């Protein structure tokens, strides 16, 4: 119905208006989710540390993220005198823009996607890999030692883990035989287990369990979350690339990090946990399932942060190159042989 209204109002420009509506429809709820994710993170961390967490602003502390946001909006953005001011401003914008751009190809339910493109997975990889520039540019433009260290660390770390992430995805692409993200979800509804009524077992998490773990952990490293947050390790380099930023410029990094977290959680749900598919036959598929799965993965991220101490830098590199990459390569071979063998469960 809305479709027809838009069609009649804008005529030939309708597809453009429709796309803009889709973008606004994603970004606004996403920013709200990001705001409340920060609140939820503080609550979960508090509970796990035998504390209560924020509970003063508004009922149950629910207005806390609004208060935080207002505070950051009204603070002054300080540009250091020796900073490269143009790039200094572009840095946070780059980080935030790429974090949002990736959402264009994310299907929220069957058919509910802004851009249903065939190379969706590649687009996603491209956008996440662009996210490094925000960090590097801001680290370099700040003209500060700590910011520069943070930029160096994040460049090396994100490039390394992108490889593990990409290789883990290759296994997913092999079994679903498509680069279209919606197709990947549909592919998880087919197969041996699904044909026998146990849809939850045919989702990629079980047959590709090692890849699921690799993807999840690489996702943590890619978003610079604990225990891989050496980029902003406050005990060593204060806040890394963000050290010189204040006010809204700092907030953009913050929003980008949490938007990326939600993105990685959603992608994990889509690639490995069946996306919007319902785990039980008698309930219909739909967006609530995807939201629930993504919430679970995000909770895992917070749980990891509350549990694990920060990795040492050389151990991060070792984990990426010497553990994950070989593991992915071996599992790729295993999946290839498996698919060619009579025991292929993806038919």
């Amino acid at each position: 119905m809305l479709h027809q209204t838009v069609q009649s109002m804008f005529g030939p420009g309708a597809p453009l208006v429709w796309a803009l509506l889709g973008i606004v429809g994603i970004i606004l709820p996403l920013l709200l989710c990001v705001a409340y994710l920060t609140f939820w993170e503080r609550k979960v961390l508090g509970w796990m540390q035998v504390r209560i967490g924020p509970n003063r602003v508004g009922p149950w502390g629910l207005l806390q993220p609004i208060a935080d946001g207002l505070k950051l909006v009204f603070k002054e953005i300080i540009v250091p005198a020796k900073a490269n001011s143009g790039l200094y401003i572009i840095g946070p914008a780059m980080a935030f823009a790429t974090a949002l751009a990736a959402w264009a190809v994310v299907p929220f339910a069957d058919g509910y996607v802004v851009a249903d493109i065939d190379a969706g997975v590649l687009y996603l990889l491209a956008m996440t890999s662009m996210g490094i520039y925000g960090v590097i540019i801001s680290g370099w433009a700040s003209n500060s030692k700590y910011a520069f260290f943070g930029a160096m660390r994040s460049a090396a770390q994100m490039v390394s883990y992108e490889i593990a992430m990409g290789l883990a995805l290759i296994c997913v692409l092999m079994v679903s035989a498509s680069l279209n993200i919606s197709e990947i979800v549909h592919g998880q509804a087919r197969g041996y287990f699904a044909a026998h009524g146990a849809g939850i077992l045919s989702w990629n998490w079980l047959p590709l369990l090692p890849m699921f773990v690799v993807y999840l952990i690489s996702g943590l490293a890619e978003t610079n979350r604990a225990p891989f947050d050496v980029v902003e390790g406050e005990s060593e380099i204060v806040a890394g690339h963000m050290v010189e930023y204040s006010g809204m410029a700092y907030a953009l990094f913050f929003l980008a990090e949490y938007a990326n977290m939600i993105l990685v959680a959603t992608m994990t749900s889509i690639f490995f946990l069946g996306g919007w598919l319902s785990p039980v036959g008698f309930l219909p598929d739909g967006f609530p399932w995807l939201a629930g799965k993504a919430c679970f993965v995000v909770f895992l991220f917070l749980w990891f942060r509350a549990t694990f101490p920060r990795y040492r830098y050389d151990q991060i590199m070792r984990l990426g190159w010497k553990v994950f990459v070989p593991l992915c390569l071996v599992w790729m071979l295993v999946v290839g042989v498996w698919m060619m063998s009579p025991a292929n469960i993806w038919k």
Partner: protein
Amino acid sequence: MEPKTAIFYVLSAILVAASLRVITAKNPVHAVLFLVLGFFSAGGLWLTLQAEFLAIVLVVVYVGAVMVLFLFVVMMLHIDVERLREGFWSNLPVAIGVGLLMVFEMALVLTGRYFGADALPEPAAAAAGYSNTKEIGRVLFSDYVYPFELASVVLLVAIVAAVALTKRPGKDKKEQNVRKQTAVRSDERLRIVAMPSEKE
């Protein structure tokens, strides 16, 4: 003007401007960032040619990985721009020669009609459900599998060579064995001894 043509001109303008800035920017980091912008616009141009796989791979590989490492190196170098300019005049004749050659080549392409290049048949229109990615994969792993494997072996040799060059054994080489470190147990590090208490 068709929207597609408009997009082409916008992307081309950005690409040309960015490429010009790559060679004119004083700061090498700016030059690298303009190169990134150039790659990105080139990716956009390829998209308009319906080569979405190549376009996105260009962004993933060059923008996402290669240029990051480039930036990594350039940021750490202290490049003295003045010294680089010393050889400007002596290299100018060669540079002009190369430039003229490139202009000539481009002229050949652009004036293709004069040489009868348009007599070649138009490429067949893509069928419905045609997947660029699938076609490239099919061609790469069937018709061109030998050159493809050859290229990968060349890259492997490069990797091995790089490792061999940097990882030379030496006597003052200090290394940590992370596997050993993570596998350590308390009884390997701490010895609890029983001893009688001393009387004064």
